[in-house]
């Protein structure tokens, strides 16, 4: 105990503080370390149910960000549903409308519709149940250092129903990094910073989960599932608070769409055009009716494709084991090509089928 401390804070408060610490410590040590984080996150998380397409689960997670019933979640096919259902922590069922979408950050803002709440008799229109729901204040910049515990609360695997508490994942905040560090390896347009978490958070229904620190302050949101094309591993990350806040601010300032928002954008999951297809020197024919078949029009001299033996008038049938039926599918596969790994083409030349492997330079 240093003199300066004693002088600065005075003796009595310090003694009192120690007294408090010593007296309450049995309770403190009995209470769980995550109690505060749980108490903050659980009531603010919303279970979402919507459209189900293919492997995309028909359920997801969002969290409340205003006293008006605004809910942030990820932009996905889930919210393309004609009717999005949202269940708050108290078990109340609402319908939700899409207010805005952010194509770059892959975020969406929903608004709960109080009139459609299932437990309301709809007789008293003055009741505004939404205003009583707790929400995260996105303006608070909560401290978070690598090595800090964090907790993600959401509806992963749809383990909870109705008023049953959502699930949580706990882990350690590992780093702040840019997603574009591994460009071309993932089909994700957002290139800003993300929070890397050491827990497995990339699960069905988990995107949109609220991430809080041990004090229960909002620090981020579990983002869309991102899978490496190189290793097929999932990336466990959260969109940082400031990105979520920026989106919500912009969306609320300009109703109908935030920056880059496209309110009705069904193509929000499409590959972002700013990732260029890998250029091996192949130029495809741009002539066709309805569908542009991937016929090779020319192959640049001294290009990897030319050296590997690709010729004019070859019809490209598959890239890296994926059938390509038209030019755009070919481009998509070439976007997914991984630098340093050879691109395997299946080509129809005359009546023959042949396989050609084009080496690529590492990034």
């Amino acid at each position, binding site marked *: *105990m240093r*003199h300066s401390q*004693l*002088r600065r804070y005075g*003796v009595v408060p*310090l*003694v009192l503080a*120690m*007294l408090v*610490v*010593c*007296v309450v*410590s*049995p309770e*403190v*040590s009995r209470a*769980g*370390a*995550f*109690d505060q*984080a*749980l108490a903050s996150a659980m009531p603010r998380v919303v279970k979402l149910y919507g459209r189900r397409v293919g*492997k995309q689960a028909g359920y997801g997670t969002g969290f409340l960000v205003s006293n008006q019933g605004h809910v942030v979640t990820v932009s996905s096919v889930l919210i393309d549903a004609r009717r999005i259902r949202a269940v708050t922590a108290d*078990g109340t069922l609402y319908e939700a409308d899409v207010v805005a979408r952010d194509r770059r950050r892959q975020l969406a803002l929903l608004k709960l519709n109080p009139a459609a709440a299932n*437990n309301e008799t709809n007789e008293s229109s003055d009741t505004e149940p939404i205003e009583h729901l707790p929400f995260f204040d996105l303006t608070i910049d909560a401290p978070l250092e690598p090595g800090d515990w964090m907790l993600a609360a959401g509806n*992963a*695997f749809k*383990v*909870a*129903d*109705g*008023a*049953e*508490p959502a*699930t*949580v*994942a*706990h882990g350690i905040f590992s780093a702040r990094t840019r997603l574009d560090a591994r460009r071309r390896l993932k089909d994700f347009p957002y290139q800003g910073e993300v929070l890397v978490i050491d*827990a*497995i*958070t*990339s*699960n*069905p229904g988990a995107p949109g989960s609220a991430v809080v620190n041990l004090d229960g302050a909002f620090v981020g949101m579990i983002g869309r599932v991102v899978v490496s094309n190189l290793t*097929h591993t*999932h990336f466990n990350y959260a969109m940082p608070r400031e990105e979520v806040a920026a989106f919500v601010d912009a969306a609320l300032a300009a109703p109908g769409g935030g920056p880059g928002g496209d309110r009705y954008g069904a193509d929000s999951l499409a590959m972002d055009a700013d990732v260029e297809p890998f250029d091996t020197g192949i130029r495809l024919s741009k002539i066709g009716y309805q569908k542009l078949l991937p016929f090779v029009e020319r192959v640049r001299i001294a290009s990897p494709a030319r050296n590997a033996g690709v010729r004019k008038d070859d019809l490209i049938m598959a890239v890296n084991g994926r059938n390509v039926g038209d030019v755009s599918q070919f481009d998509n596969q070439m976007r997914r090509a991984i630098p340093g790994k050879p691109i395997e083409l299946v080509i129809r030349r005359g009546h023959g089928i042949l396989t050609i492997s084009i080496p690529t330079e590492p990034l």
Partner: protein
Amino acid sequence: MNANLQSRRIIASIASVLCFYSANTSAVSPLDVVLDEEARRVEMIERISPSVVCVFDARRRGGGSGVLIDEHGYGLTNYHVVAGLLATRKGWGGLGDGVLYELEVLGIDVTGDVAMFRLIPPKKGYKFPFSRLGDSDSVSVGDPAIAMGNPFILSEDYLPSVTLGLITGTNRYQWGVKGNLAYTNCIQVDAPINPGNSGGPLFNTSGEVIGINGRISVNTRGRFNVGFGYAISSNQIKRFMPALRAGLLGRHGSWQATVEKTPDGIVFARLKEPGPAFDAGIRRGDRLTAIDNVPIETSNQVASLLGTYPEHWPILLDVERDGRARRVMVRLDPVQPNMKRPFEAERDANVRQVRRVLETYRRASRSDETTAVPTRWKWAVRRAFRAASDGTTQPAQQYEANWIKGERVRMRQRHEDGTSGRLVEYDDVSAEQRTSPTAEAFELPIQDRMASHALFRLRRWLVGDSDTVEVTELILAGGDAVWAPTMWSGGTAIEPRAAKDVTPHYVEIVKAQLGAHATARFGFDIESGLAVSVHVSDDLSGFSIDMTLSDHRDVGGVRWPTTIVVRGDGTGYRDTSSDWELAP
């Protein structure tokens, strides 16, 4: 400077005093708290890990995990871990001491994915390390939990792998496969659980087993942990343990009804007639507000809770009709699990359990081992009758009872003025009522004779010579819950619906033949070992009675129930005994 020094001294002395008082937490420095906690955890893991079992099949190939729950080598695992061993019931269990023990599969619960096994002791009297089952209802989200087992069959020396995580959900419901392997009201945990962990224990921070890990959620990536593990709760397993230990097929129970969610709450939709719920007077549209005192909010919760009860188990339901609340007790119908070939109960395992239960009963009932086994008992009985349906009550009666081992029991009625009344006498061996030439003898109702006969049997097991205990004729029939001691209070009968905040006693049932045509199910309290309930049914007359035995008092070196409540068709009374005299 001087003032500072003084204050420093004050602080130092206060701090040392305070820290003396909170020595167990030594809470001054948060770092110390963390280090203490970590040291405690390491110590605890060392203490509990010897009880964790690596389960292998007969050819010693990959299997799963398990945990020993008593010193005799009885352990729990998942049904799906031992399903492949059922043909021979034989396998191997490796413990942290590096030894591979022979493993014998006992009872199984296919619906709930639980199985019991026994490691064969290498020599008589060998004591295995074990862990205790904890109270899984006391678990809350955010609590730390430790999973142990043999994931990916990593362990060469049978020392278990340890993973630490948080409880991330309670009361979860995970659907089964064709009615089997449903995880109802289970614990969700994010401690990594992987293939091979199945059947292994989930511990709380006190080192108690709060669940058996057996299931994970996976997605397209493959069969390994993504942060979602599920453990069957220890409180569910406790209900099935008597059957599992005795080598029986542990069947689950059903109330034969469905519920649906309405704006009014959870209401009954369809009921099978006759069926347990219907027979208890529940009808379509009745609102369900609680099961065993747990308030009901969702239909998911109903399915989840009901999945945790064995067949014939009594559950208390709070229901409402037209705003009137009532409480009923429902005994659940058995549900046959989906099995390719029928499960054959293990007779040897059963006999072992009958021996253990009766031995525990004898030991628990002999408060003083040094006194000789009594051969003569005298006592007085006051019999209070339950009010009949028309509200009338018979006046209470007094008896004097006298038992001589191997000969007879004689019960003589005493009037209030001290004069003797009617007399009844039974043979102590056959329990037959003796026909007496005296005019004062009387014929007792059959329910009374059934009750007496059951008590004879209990007395014989207690004070009889051990070779007269006919264990091979007895069957351990599973477990049950007994609420009954609270149904009578201060001499007044209280219906179970009025008993609030009651926790039942869990008992093990020993089934015995009474005479030529009656069967009795004796319930022995799992915790105390004492006899607390008897159900007797007489095939010839069709009568059946339920007896509850409570207020066990020490009477001359023997612990015997001094309050015996008998309820049955057309009868209901409570015997309170006093003035005990025992002679060797």
